[in-house]
């Protein structure tokens, strides 16, 4: 047993987190910044933060992840990191020549109170930011919220420091995709294009973390939202923010700043959430839904009906981020599966309420917890007390999956040991098909493994 010290009996913990279901803000800010074309994400803190975030993203994507750091020493921790950041900006623009640097803070620079607006202003006055180049920033204290909060803060930074209102509408819809994979961002753009909705999607990591191998290393790959588009987002007719935790703040900030109205939707995982996304594009942009989209929807409904017997009343444990877990749980309920244990380390009472509402007709007791001590240790204990048929979550779940001999589907962050998330979306109807394929494969592989010989069947 790998997790041999996890007792079945649940004793309340008040302060200790064991096997967290979240990480800290800066990595989210870094991931979001990679969704700007020509951007160098910069971590203002000790170099270890940057090294850890780069390593985690690299392991997740198997792609280059180039970001810089202020490399604080003990001296900078005492006297402030201004000199480090000024020097860093000069070096970054000279050596790497990005179009933009996106700075986020860390617990170190937050605790000592470094003032990013002031330092960046000084950098500009000192001539360290070349003509036409941009520096944006956001505050991402690691001791507040989670990686999701950091993502949200950086996207808000993009809006606050890049979006402009020229007074003329550009006829586009902004889509803030939330913390989803590059493949998902690509799929959202494809769906919007199918609907003939002109759009600006930001941030956009497609073409950044799923690039080709062709003998050339591009520090700034072809993907990413352009600075022009980010500026123009202030002229769009509306914003669809996907996910209350990762996207809503930026959309509201854009509304406040440039009077671009917004609607907050769930990330379109599964049938119902995708229906709402498509319907929102349909009604807000005033476009008909093309047959092709309806056919994709019909295919998803078809597969649900074809394989419903293997899904019906199967119990599922989930771990992940609120914006993902809400529509995922909804999707599972919609195919008559039973999500029974759900945790996220990202705090939010609204999360627990949404999950309870979605699962109110599930015929089992449902455990849900968000925030402090809502960790994978607790999830494992819940599973020990009330076993499930399937676990859905990041790669760390494989320790529980192996110990408890329960099949798992990898979804979320980080996925460190399988390929696919970079290239194949789980949003939209096609993404729903992929989710179902993965869930069914996991369940049926297990059935084929465990069935006695006399009931082992060729056709399922």
């Amino acid at each position, binding site marked *: 047993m*790998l*997790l041999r*010290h996890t007792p079945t009996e649940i004793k309340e*913990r*008040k*302060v*200790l*987190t*064991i096997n*967290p279901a979240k*990480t*800290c*803000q800066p*990595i989210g800010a870094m991931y979001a910044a990679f969704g700007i074309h020509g951007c160098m994400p910069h971590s203002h803190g*000790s*170099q*270890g*933060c940057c*090294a850890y975030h780069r*390593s*985690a993203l*690299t392991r997740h994507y*198997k*792609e*280059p*992840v*180039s970001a*810089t*750091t*202020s*490399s*604080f*020493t*003990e*001296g900078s*921790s005492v006297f402030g990191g201004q000199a480090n*950041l000024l*020097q*860093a900006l*000069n*070096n970054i623009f*000279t*050596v790497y020549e990005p179009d933009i640097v996106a700075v986020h803070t860390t*617990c*170190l620079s937050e*605790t000592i109170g470094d003032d990013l607006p002031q330092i960046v202003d000084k950098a500009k006055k000192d001539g360290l930011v070349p003509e036409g180049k941009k520096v944006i920033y956001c505050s991402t*204290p*690691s*001791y507040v919220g989670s990686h999701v909060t950091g993502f949200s803060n950086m996207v808000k930074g993009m809006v606050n420091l890049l979006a402009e209102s020229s007074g003329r509408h550009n006829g586009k819809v902004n889509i803030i995709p939330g913390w989803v994979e590059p493949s998902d961002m690509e799929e959202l753009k494809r769906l919007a294009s199918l609907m003939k909705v002109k759009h600006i999607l930001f941030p956009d990591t497609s073409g950044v973390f799923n690039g080709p*191998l*062709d*003998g*050339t*290393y*591009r*520090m700034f790959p072809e993907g990413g939202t352009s600075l022009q588009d980010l500026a123009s987002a202030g002229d769009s007719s509306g914003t669809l923010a996907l996910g209350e935790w990762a996207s809503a703040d930026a959309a509201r900030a854009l509304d406040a700043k440039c009077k671009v109205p917004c609607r907050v939707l769930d990330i379109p995982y599964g049938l119902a959430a995708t229906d709402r996304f498509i319907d929102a594009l349909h009604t807000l942009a005033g476009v008909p839904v093309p047959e092709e989209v309806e056919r994709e929807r019909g295919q998803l409904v078809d597969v649900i009906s074809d394989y419903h017997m293997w899904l019906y009343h199967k119990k599922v444990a989930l771990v992940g981020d609120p914006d993902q877990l809400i529509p995922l749980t909804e999707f599972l309920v919609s195919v008559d599966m039973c999500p029974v244990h759900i945790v996220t*380390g990202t705090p939010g009472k609204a999360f627990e309420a949404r999950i309870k509402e979605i699962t109110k007709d599930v015929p089992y007791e449902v455990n849900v917890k968000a925030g402090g001590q809502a960790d994978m*240790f607790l999830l494992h204990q819940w599973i020990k007390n009330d076993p499930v048929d399937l676990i859905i979550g990041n790669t*760390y779940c494989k*320790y529980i999956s192996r110990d408890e001999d329960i099949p798992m589907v990898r979804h979320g962050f980080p996925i460190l040991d399988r390929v696919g998330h970079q290239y194949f979306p789980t949003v939209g109807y096609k993404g729903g098909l992929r989710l179902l394929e993965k869930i069914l494969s996991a369940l049926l592989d297990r059935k084929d493994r465990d069935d006695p010989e006399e009931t082992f069947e060729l056709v399922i």
Partner: protein
Amino acid sequence: MSTAQKSPPSAWDPASVKEELLKKYPPKVARKRAKQIQVPVPGEEQPEIMANVRTIPGILTMRGCSYAGCKGVILGPTRDIVNITHGPIGCGFYSWLTRRNQTRPGPDGPNYMPYCFSTDMQDEDIIFGGEKKLRAAIQEAYDTIHPKAIAIFATCPVGLIGDDIHAVANEMKEELGINIFAFSCEGYKGVSQSAGHHIANNQIFRHVVGEAGRPPEGKYRINLLGEYNIGGDAFEIDRIFEKCGITMASTFSGNSTYDQFARAHTSDLNCVMCHRSINYVADMMEQKYGIPWIKVNFISGEGTAKSLRKIAQYFEDKELIDRVEEVIAEEMVAVKAAQEEVRPRTEGKTAMMFVGGSRAHHYQDLFNEIGMSTLAAGYEFAHRDDYEGRRVLPNIKLDADSRNIEELEVTQSETEYNPRKDSGTLEALAEAGLPVKEYKGMMTQMGDHASLAIDDLNQYEAEKLVELLKPDLFCAGIKEKFSIQKQGVPMKQLHSYDSGGPYAGFKGAINFYHEVDRLVNSKVWSYMTPPWKKNPELVGAFVWE
């Protein structure tokens, strides 16, 4: 930015490559980097290389922090100490199972390595202090797990807000009656992971070594220092030791346990693998307990054989000397066969390696054994002595960052000091070719061919080196892996070994030869250009004819 076309360089001029690497930098950066890039020369006198100095802000570094070196590297591989990270959640999360240090707890033994324990500090803890939370977290960890020892690791904000983690550790040690100790390894300490190694080793030496008196059974008892059991290296080394009749009483810290550390003072010889991360522990054990240390290297077939001979020579026992020779003769058959098998496909190929504090040196031997040479190498966090040899130790100036890392005052133990060899014997051994406390450094090995030694290599220089010198293989860490491979050059992780290993010992050498063969001869590197980029576009109906 750059495209590497395969064509191994014949004669090249390291000095002009160095110049090329520096061209784009702002003047201040160029001046500093110029001192960190040196051309090794033949012999022991090497040009002075600047090392263990601050990373330049904004220059894309490979380095991590003190916490990573302390909690991740040194204490990470020990399976039966509950490691609690005191800080916001990230540091604990990122150091959770991400190094490939393997362990063998047996079916029932304690193993906390798959767990991540954190106080997950919140803003109120930053404002009002986190000591109360830490105390409660230790209690909850104890109540949940019942370990024999708990270690506390400080993250950046802890030092800034002034939490006294050592006082909390002492208090809880009293209260719970188990060993509890803390590490002030805030990420901003020092200039790299190296500071964290030092902080970790100091505390293990202070709080654990010497706590248990009973040595394991065995005639030739040694400790292996600076071996972290990545990919199972320590298992292979242990296999060889067992075969030779050598008892590995403790490793620092691959596949280690609390009790192994606690009994380390009972061994008769310390063998140092990674000089950088632990040479000072060997020094301290010599001063306090009288255990001499020698430098060993179990990377490469010849290196392993040589290290075994050194150990046997140290014990001055014919039985062991003979047994070691038997084992070497037996094991080297397969090693030689594997070399011969891959050599036609690896001979003449070139490598670069930029890792850690010892592997960039040790792995050069492995490459040599299959006919490959090292064009450029360097460390991520080493000091001058790791490059130029210990002879420069007296000349290394302590800067402010190093001065902040505690140096323990060690004196002879009144009860446990026992010089294993008198000075006369040690001198005689040195004359016979076994000097204690000797390490000649990486550069001395590189001076016989055109090469570059580069400290704290960064992304830009890595890309330039690949572009200019077109190595057949590049070795570094996970962060460097994919930018190198995008340039069309295979990249091997020498921190984590990707998913491979063991590469130490005889079987490890064989594994590595095959791995290198796979890497440099993989078909994938021929697929980068699609056929239509090679064929001219033809227009007109005749194309179809």
